[in-house]
């Protein structure tokens, strides 16, 4: 039951991240565009996580910071890869 309720949200996440990967490949010869795509992906994931937990009425400061920090770490990984 719980999993069924999550499916639409997981679907939205997968589609969004799939688009990010697609655009990263699409812009494979333009590193600036790739980095912007990656940054949009990180923001999208962070916002998705916050909304996902808010809709489940489980959003707390700890969960909020978990998504912000996770998005930040992944963005820094992308920054390291795309700007050097």
């Amino acid at each position, binding site marked *: 039951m719980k999993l069924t309720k999550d499916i639409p949200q997981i679907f939205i996440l997968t589609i969004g*991240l799939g688009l990010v990967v697609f655009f990263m490949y699409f812009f*494979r010869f333009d590193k600036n565009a790739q980095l912007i795509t990656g940054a949009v992906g990180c923001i999208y994931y962070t916002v998705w996580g916050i909304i996902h937990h808010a809709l489940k009425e489980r959003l707390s400061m700890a*969960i909020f910071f*978990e998504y912000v*920090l996770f998005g930040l*770490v992944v963005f*820094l990984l*992308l920054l*390291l890869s795309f700007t050097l």
Partner: protein
Amino acid sequence: MIDKYQFLHHFLPHPTKKKRAVLLQHGAMLTYALVLVTFLGIFRTIPRVAPGVLGYASDISVSDLLKGTNKIRNENGLNSLRLNQSLTKAAEAKAHHMFAHNYWAHVAPDGTTPWDFVLDSNYDYSYAGENLAKNFDSSNDVVKAWFNSPSHRENLLSTNYDEIGFAVVNGVLDGYETTLVVQMFGRPRAAIPVASKEEEDRILTSYETVPTEATQVITISPEKAPELAFNLAGPQEVLPAVDVTTATRSITLLVSGFLFILLALDIWYSRRRAIPRLSGNAFAHITFLVMTVVGVWFALTPGKVL
């Protein structure tokens, strides 16, 4: 059993505290962010304090670039371009000018245009064009990148050109050891025959005879080929102390792999011990991480074209 070894909760969730593994908690995530910022700082500082330590490994040759360019033209029903010594000289001059003045652009900071190099090499043109590339590791990747960029493809597939010149020059640009590739296209203004096959072979042969130093001066005897007496920077393999592409990919894979293992352990152990926790969705974190690695690994191509 595990509870006897508390250090394991660095890697596994805590059943009584109902928390994630210590290495997945906020403090640890903040530490990873700081470590990555430190790496970024180091990679930005090294080129300034020790130019040439960081770089891009490459093995690019003029003959492969010529073959690749003409193969693409032929596949699109166009004639092959013949290697011309004046355009080669212009390309060499442009590449050396970029290293000497530390820039990467079609127009130099002092206003010198690509056409100045072409005219200085005594090539009077009716049409001319220039493609640039840097930080690539193979000739094939360079040609592929030009072909995939609309503006560069326009040059590659233009019917306005009959001749071509290449320069593949190694040096230090912005503190990074790299290889610059310059491709000059042209059609002579006067109705003179385009470069002959013999001239092309002579240029290619002269590249093959370049010794292994970073930059060599080739002087061909005036009796044999007076027009070829110019500086030739032969294409040699570049092997920097630290290859930037390999280093960044390794760091990305290492950090992502570490987080992936911790999150997988979190899911497995939480289910096994039925630990209820108020934390983020570990499955979502893993999905995000995997897609990031896929993006970096397959979409990140080394090199830039201009």
